């Protein structure tokens, strides 16, 4: 984009910086992503001390400060606990892309998750007036052969029609 014309004395320089990144998943997040890719399963890990789930699983239970080493499957269905209808096209700093607006994001308490843990993902719905807390929703996975071991192997969540 050409710099906006300013008063003659001011110099204005534009610059786009790019930093290629290779992030490690580590064994815990790695297990979660592999389960998405290979088995279409959502894995949470469970704290051995307080029993709460974390999904996606993380190395340590933040509350107890101990490693959470047990894994349990949760979902793929769950209850919508909170949601956002986004009207502002926020750019993804990794891809530079923005979604078409409006779109919805959701915190889902997946069936089987303990201790109030919720999972954050996109909620696919064109009629935003349908959205309310307490709705039943389910994960929709990417097709076989197209899942890569990324969070987007779950394409989105959708409302389960007919379930209150």
């Amino acid at each position, binding site marked *: 984009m050409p710099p906006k014309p300013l008063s003659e004395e001011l110099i204005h320089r534009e610059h786009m910086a790019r930093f290629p*990144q290779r992030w490690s998943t580590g064994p815990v997040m790695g297990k979660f992503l592999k389960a998405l890719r290979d088995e279409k399963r959502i894995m949470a890990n469970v704290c051995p001390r307080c029993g709460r789930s974390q999904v996606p699983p993380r190395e340590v239970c933040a509350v107890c400060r101990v490693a959470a080493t047990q894994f349990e499957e949760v979902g793929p269905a769950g209850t919508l606990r909170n949601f956002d209808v986004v009207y502002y096209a926020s750019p993804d700093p990794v891809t530079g892309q923005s979604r078409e607006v409006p779109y919805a994001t959701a915190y889902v308490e997946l069936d089987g998750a303990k201790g109030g843990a919720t999972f954050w993902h996109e909620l696919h719905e064109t009629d935003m007036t349908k959205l309310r807390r307490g709705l039943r929703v389910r994960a929709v996975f990417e097709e076989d052969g197209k899942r890569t071991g990324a969070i987007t192997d779950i394409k989105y969540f959708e409302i389960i029609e007919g379930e209150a």
Partner: protein
Amino acid sequence: MPPRVAICAVAQSKYVRDRWQDRVQGMCWEVVQHVVRATGVDLAGEDVGAVVSNSDDFFDCRTISDSAITDVVGAHFKCEEKVAQDGAQAVYYGYANVASGSSDVVLVAGHSKESQVGDRNLITHAAFDPFYTRPVGLDYLAAAALQADAFLRRFGITDADLARLVCQQRAKAARNPLANERTPLSPADVAASPMLADPLREAYVYPPSDGAVAMILASEDRARHLTDKPVWITGLGSSIDSFFLGDRDLSESASLRQAAGRAYRMANIGQPRTAFDVCELSDPYAHQLPLWAWQLGLTEDPRQWLSGDLARFNPSGGSLAGTPQVVSGLARTAEAVLQLRNEAGERQIPGAKRALAHGTTGPAGQQHCVVVLET
């Protein structure tokens, strides 16, 4: 009177070029667990009053890089403050936390994975101002090369002199199981090492490194419960030089002299040349070991120093062996602590009682932090 402050436990991950097996969280958890076990503190309880973290948003490619490790440092519903400079500054700030009365026990935790970014020079290139110095392509390697050129020329230090130093330091790294690059080097190996930025050969530049360091700092009252070998922080000094390389005499370091002076005054050190049993200095570039040693007052003649007995200088192999630059000063401090606790294994300097640790931030050592430690 502020309370005396001791380092009660330290832990370092083994430094490697690529810790692909773990996220930063896993790498950091390893060292935090170690110091928690060593001191018996309960991270879930009230034992630790605050966390001082040490990481860099650009190297982590994560805004608020400390939020990534909140869980593993036990900061859920606790205080955590990130020092966004070299890790020796985290020792300095950790000390201030305790000495201020704010917290009796502080966990200091630093991490960095240089393997994450394709080329670390891209990151340090972004440290230059967008108008004058970034467009000409400067990064910390080029800045260090300019400094090396000025310094080596001033004292007539040759490529062969530097090669000999590197071989000596690499031999020390071979005795340090935590060091990154441990293969011994011969002068022929060094001569064959490609020039990255004249006069800096690849062998004179630290390898890209991944690692984490944790420490527990405590007031005197608490320290005695946490360890039977407290290492006291008796001197701290830091200073920052001007930004544009042309405003500085790169063959010396005014800010390091200032930082050293402050640390020595606080520690009551009159004669630095004979004061320290061990010196762990941050030397990501080989020429910086003699340069820092000279400006710290540890020698009057850096060229002569090179042919002396260097046993007590960076017995760990130093940052040159491969410590991520973000945590370098924290790692050097950890090594100094191990020496004073007589836990440095094969690299132990016998009978070490007082040590100097050092860290640096910015191009060609713009900023320095000096730490004096004693048993």
